[in-house]
């Protein structure tokens, strides 16, 4: 798992699950359809990504589909990054 993927998994785990929630967040865990992150919470996740990776995600690209898995989130970050993150 590369650093970016791990960072996003850890952030989701820390911010969206209770401390003793035993669910595991993987690259393919369904976050939106699985009810872990909803359309309102997406804003804070988007803000985190923009700040952390110095990118600007257009509203049109910030869809529930794009935020449904860590894998799709990582793809979104890569899409709007000018300089790739070190793996």
């Amino acid at each position: 798992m590369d650093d970016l993927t791990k960072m996003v998994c850890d952030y989701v785990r820390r911010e969206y699950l209770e401390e003793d929630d035993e669910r595991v967040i993987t690259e393919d865990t369904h976050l939106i359809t699985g009810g872990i992150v909803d359309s309102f919470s997406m804003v804070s996740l988007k803000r985190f990504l923009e700040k952390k990776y110095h990118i600007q995600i257009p509203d049109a690209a910030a869809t529930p589909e794009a935020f449904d898995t860590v894998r799709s989130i990582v793809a979104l970050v890569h899409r709007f990054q000018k300089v790739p993150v070190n793996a």
Partner: protein
Amino acid sequence: MDKNSTYDELLAKVSWSAAEQELGYKPGEFLNIGWMCSDRICQIGWAEKLALGWEDFKGNEKRYTFNDVRVLSNTIAQYLCNLDIRVGERVCLFMDRVPELYIGFLGILKTGAVAQPLYSAFGDESLLVRLKDAETAALFTQAKHLPKVRKIRAQLPALRDVIVVDAGDMPLREGEFAFDMDGAPRVETFCVYPTTAESPSVLHYTSGTTGQPKGAQHVHYSIISQYLTTKVVLDPHPDDIYWCNADPGWVTGTSYGIIGPWSNGATQVVLDSGFHAERWYEFIEKHRVTVWYSAPTAIRLLMKEGLEPVRAHDLSSLRHLASVGEPLNAQAVIWGEEAFGKPFHDTFWQTETGCIVITNFPGMPIKPGSMGKPFPGITATVLNTKTYEPITEPGIAGLIALRPGWPSMIRGYWNNQVGFKKKFQNGWYLCGDRASIDADGYFWFMGRDDDVINTGGHLVGPFEIESALLEHQAVQESAAVAKPDPFHMEIVKAFVKLKPGYKPDEDLELEIMNFVRKRLSPIAMPQEIEFVESLPKTRSGKIVRRVLRCKEFNEPVGDLSTIMDE
């Protein structure tokens, strides 16, 4: 209903008393929502008809006939009686959209207890406020939500039993019980408690301008309204497949996600999944949904995805579409016609009304952007804001008001009669919204009349948001107001004055946003925080949210003479 009925014809033939007769109810006699939505439907010959087709985001499915719903609600009712839950006690349902939520709701009502559904995304602070106020005696939940309940349990002395519906082998603590609805011995016969029309039934918490959320107290008689408005406005036919995508933690999900459709014997399908356009269209296609009751925020999110995913699915089963929660903008109505071949019918109502009160009817011409007309049996008007007299001139904005007395009007706010009395002026019930009425009798929404924020169709009170903000170590003062948003209609924006020594930056903004989200809910989370040196206040120190809100909406701020310069 005959979609060729004119509005005047509806007014002539639709009535609460006719609904009573259809349901076989005689005033003064036994009336129980749980029985009406299950036993009665079996008695009229629909025992083997599908009541609930459920699916989750992974594609797991469950199916329940009306007889299953009858027997399983009996089973839950008996289980609660065995736990010594008494008549009138509050039993909370704190779960995702799982079958136990829908069927458990009826089971609670069959015991004579009061059902208290709560949105499963509520944080522990939001949960605590509502459970404490209601002195809730028992609570159904799922394993994944149990940590939130455990966190606050010590502060809830009235809470005796926590029932976990999917505990499996999970170790439970004292006062926690595992209950497997599908696996429990079925209770074929249960002696339903003899509730009557005015017996308390459901407690729904709703936010206001001031103070913490209030418990809106409904009674069993509300079913008359919910049955009839479902029949006339949502129009489910015997062979229809109905989908209401509202969560039963909110009033739409109980009035029109349980009581309305099931009292009409309608088959409904439920998708336990977050929003995902492709998934939703797959669901409609797979189950051949015919009547779809959705919300403007969801419709606007679907619009954002465009027509391509629509065209990729066979949605020809859709016969009738309706919308609830916030005004449906004209563009969304028009898009619905383009996408699905028919318009979404906007419906207006609220927690306190318990049923649709102003609406667009099947077959009635829709004016895109209009709320529609009053439901037969509802007298609605707009009142002058100073005299509280009805405005008779078309096009003039006033306060939306209803003549009290329709069946599902709340009977009060829990432990808050003062707050309840404030909802009435000059013999009218005030909805808290403003509108105008045109020359054809159509209502046009203008906005809230108070500081409540309507975000994605959910009302959030500024007080609870500000209270949560003040709990953050960096926050000295705060104000929460609505800000216009193209998808959610409004979002929560917070203005924050920091304590000395704290630096306003993006990291702190994100930290505070997440802090509020976890304490309250994603809905209450400020989506934007502006750090300020001061907040507009009166001489007595009261924050004047109106000034901040007007700036966000680009409206004149009005009289500033009472605002103190800091």
